[in-house]
């Protein structure tokens, strides 16, 4: 069938230089493929750098009887059974080797006295499963992979295009992706790249919600652009709200779940009017509401549950500190030297940005938007026993042939709620299987992108030039940052912890208005050079497209599952909604379609964290 393609003569493009993009790049390089690596920022500044607590791997060095089977079950259970199970299983089984690899690459993981990797507790489990480097694990992992890629860059096998914004996939007449067009955010020029396959590893879209725990680049723009081109977007309505963040005028800074993993406790004064210094409030006058309401897992219930409870305590029971939107996250009972060794990074953040030493005083925190479980729909190939078929070109493939996706920009691994410390893992695992999948795909091609007609690429550049000129030339006096603030506030108020169809329909209506205004943005300066306001206007339009997918998907799903909670439909409804949401772009709004979830490994059961061990019953032979 066709001529045999030599992959060492192929060229692939990876968009995004976080963990998923870098790992995809490494795998392509090891197969001999040349890679163009595009990133909005110098790759070392990608959002993976913000991850704090750690990376999960069931190495069982603590003799607790942990295993990848238990990890799989707890991840599926934590995700309220919405994730397709074979990819979760593949990820959990690969996890120990991934952590070993990172250790070999030089990540300064915390050690045990014997010199082995140390593991700590995290949410949704009773096992010490989380490897960590202080409380800046994401930074350390990102640097290790960045260094690994730099090695190939120094040899000329990787060419980096940093400060480049993905604009569009270039598709040939059959709809196959043969490259992309991107804008250089320094000089504003637009150019195309030929690529025999393309992987988007462009992160999440939390900035749709305005101020969040995320980096400013996390607008979801690349996924939004691919969505407009026909790529299917899945489970968009599942947005993770992290229970513990500190408020700020510019962002809501994360206080890692590892704080609770190391013994941190959440509480409010029993008397909401108690004006005393928290240290002067005796234990019996404190309400440790997570420990009280979830005795099995206490402060380490999964994020959706912890956020909901904090929200309930503050908004409905009016028991927040001083009656406001704040609870205590208390570490003061833990020795300072232990805190410094294991949580140093986040303590510094609190100290620097709040001006209070969390070793001495309880921190004040509130939930904040943190992660998108949803994202571009991607495929997988599993055998009869639920094992991912290594090297299958279907793995991580989007609905556009030749276009792959890995990391937070896709939906594959976390179902309705992600467990803490599974995101670094899913990014790296997705990269580990997308690279080989792209290699297999390229081997099966009949012709490379070098043979694609130049007109395809010139046409794409021309269309994008036209669109950018339209943004620069628009009149109407609107300011993209103001529109973004309004959208963010509405999304935050009505489409996060508690959702009602009435309020969401109102937000949905307002999206039309914002979209219309986004087309009437006036940019004060028509100079292309580093014109950030013009670039942001494009991102705003992408965010509005995704906001639409999130809101409409949430309105349709009349049940409560994981992070998606509707007080009017408080129960999970497997008969109607144990299915993946698939949205496809349409001019008059997205079209929705649903597909069954692969539940071949862990049969769905009611999800509860009241009783210890509930999450691992099947693996432990107790759940039959």
């Amino acid at each position, binding site marked *: 069938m066709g001529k045999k393609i030599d992959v060492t003569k192929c060229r692939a493009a990876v968009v995004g230089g976080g963990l998923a993009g870098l790992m995809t790049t490494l795998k392509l390089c090891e197969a001999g493929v040349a890679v163009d690596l595009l990133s909005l920022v110098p790759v070392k500044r990608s959002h993976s750098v913000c991850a704090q607590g750690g990376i999960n791997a069931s190495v069982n060095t603590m003799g607790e009887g942990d295993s990848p089977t238990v990890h799989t079950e707890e991840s599926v259970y934590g995700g309220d059974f919405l994730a397709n199970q074979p990819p979760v299983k593949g990820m959990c089984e690969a996890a120990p080797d991934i952590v070993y690899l990172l*250790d070999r690459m030089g990540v300064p993981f915390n050690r045990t006295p014997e*010199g082995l990797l140390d593991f700590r507790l995290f949410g949704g489990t009773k096992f010490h499963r989380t490897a960590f480097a202080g409380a800046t694990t994401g*930074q350390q992992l990102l640097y290790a992979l960045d260094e690994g890629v730099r090695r190939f860059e120094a040899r000329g096998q990787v060419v980096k295009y940093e400060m480049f914004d993905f604009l569009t996939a270039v598709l040939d007449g059959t709809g196959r992706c043969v490259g992309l067009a991107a804008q250089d955010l320094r000089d504003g020029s637009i150019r195309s790249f030929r690529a025999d396959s393309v992987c988007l590893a462009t992160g999440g879209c939390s900035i749709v919600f305005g101020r969040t725990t995320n980096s400013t680049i996390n607008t979801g723009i690349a996924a939004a652009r691919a969505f407009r081109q026909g790529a299917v977007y899945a489970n968009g309505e599942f947005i993770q709200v992290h229970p513990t963040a500190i408020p700020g005028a510019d962002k809501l800074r994360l206080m890692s779940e590892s704080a609770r993993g190391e013994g941190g406790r959440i509480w409010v004064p029993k008397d909401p009017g108690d004006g005393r210094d928290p240290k002067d409030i005796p234990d019996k006058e404190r309400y440790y509401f997570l420990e009280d309401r979830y005795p099995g897992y206490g402060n380490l219930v999964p994020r959706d549950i912890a956020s909901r409870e904090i929200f309930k305590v503050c908004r409905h029971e009016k028991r927040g500190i001083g009656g406001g939107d704040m609870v205590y996250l208390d570490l003061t009972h833990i020795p300072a030297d232990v805190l410094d060794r294991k949580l140093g990074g986040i303590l510094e953040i609190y100290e620097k940005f709040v001006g209070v030493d969390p070793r001495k005083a309880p921190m004040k925190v509130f939930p904040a938007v943190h992660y998108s479980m949803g994202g571009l729909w991607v495929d997988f190939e599993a055998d009869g026993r639920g094992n991912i078929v290594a090297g299958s070109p279907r793995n991580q493939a989007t609905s556009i042939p030749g276009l792959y996706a890995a990391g937070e920009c896709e939906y594959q691994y976390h179902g309705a709620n992600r467990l803490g410390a599974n995101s670094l893992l899913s990014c790296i695992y997705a990269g580990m299987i997308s690279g080989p999948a792209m290699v297999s795909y390229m081997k099966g091609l009949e012709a490379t992108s070098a043979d694609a007609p130049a007109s395809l690429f010139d046409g794409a550049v021309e269309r994008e030039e036209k669109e950018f000129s339209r943004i620069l030339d628009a009149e109407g006096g609107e300011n993209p940052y103001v529109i973004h603030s309004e959208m963010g506030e509405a999304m935050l108020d009505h489409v996060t912890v508690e959702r009602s169809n009435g309020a969401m329909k109102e937000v949905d209506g307002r999206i039309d208005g914002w979209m219309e205004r986004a087309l009437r943005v006036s940019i004060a300066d028509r100079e292309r050079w580093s014109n950030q*306001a013009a670039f942001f206007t494009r991102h705003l339009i992408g965010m509005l497209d995704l906001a639409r997918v999130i809101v409409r998907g949430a309105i349709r799903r009349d049940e409560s599952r994981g992070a998606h909670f509707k007080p009017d439909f408080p129960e999970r409804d497997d008969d109607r909604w144990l299915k993946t949401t698939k949205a496809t772009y349409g001019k008059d709004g997205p079209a929705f379609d649903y597909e069954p979830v692969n539940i071949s490994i862990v049969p769905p059961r009611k999800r509860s964290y009241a009783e210890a061990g509930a999450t691992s019953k099947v693996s432990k032979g107790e759940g039959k």
Partner: protein
Amino acid sequence: MAESTIHVRVERRARPDAAPYWEGFEVPHRPMMNVISVLQEVQRNPVNTEGKKVLPVVWECNCLEEICGACTMLINGRVRQACSALVDQIGTTITLEPMSKFPVLRDLLVDRARMFEAQKKIIAWVEVDGTYALGPGPRSSQAEQEERYPLSKCMTCGCCCEACPNYTPGGDFLGPFAMNLVRLFNTHPTGRNEWRRRIETVMGKGGIAYCGKSQNCVEVCPKEIPLVDSLAFVNRQAVQHLLTGWILGAGRK
């Protein structure tokens, strides 16, 4: 009045080759503001003190929690990250300038590509056989981890280069941060295998001899990396290499 308004002056330029000029903005002062939120306020209302609508100030930022290193600039004359510069600490009269050691792209946005190039030169990675499953990594004591981890927090922000009198635009010095990375990789159980190659690199052009020991670097490092110790470490290894490598001929290619 004065208490409720932030006066910010920004050194701007439209292009790398354009002449710089100063532009002032007034921004309402709210609690918990940092320099980023001041600039975001300008984005939402980009009108200068003369009442003219202008393009919002261009700058680089990303994480906003002092871990990505992007938003480094001169704030009231001092190099630091804009995100961790809190208005309540620095005052309501604020001057912002781009770093002076790197090419300016526009306004406060600079190009630090030279720092990433330096990392290629000094072999800033551990040579692993591949990313496939090859079993656990080398054992390492808690003490070794506690030595290496602080060195590994370098976010390539450029503060040390900006403060170093021997790091100049277009100059050769690889920078204090690069010497620290040599130490980081030369203390890793596997990274150590390449220690002579790294040391030979920094014994050459742009290397350790370019350090004038002003010790400015350690003063401005936001991550409090012990840069002076790292410089001393590299010096020691250079002497060791000189004695055992060049003079005695051991380990030569």
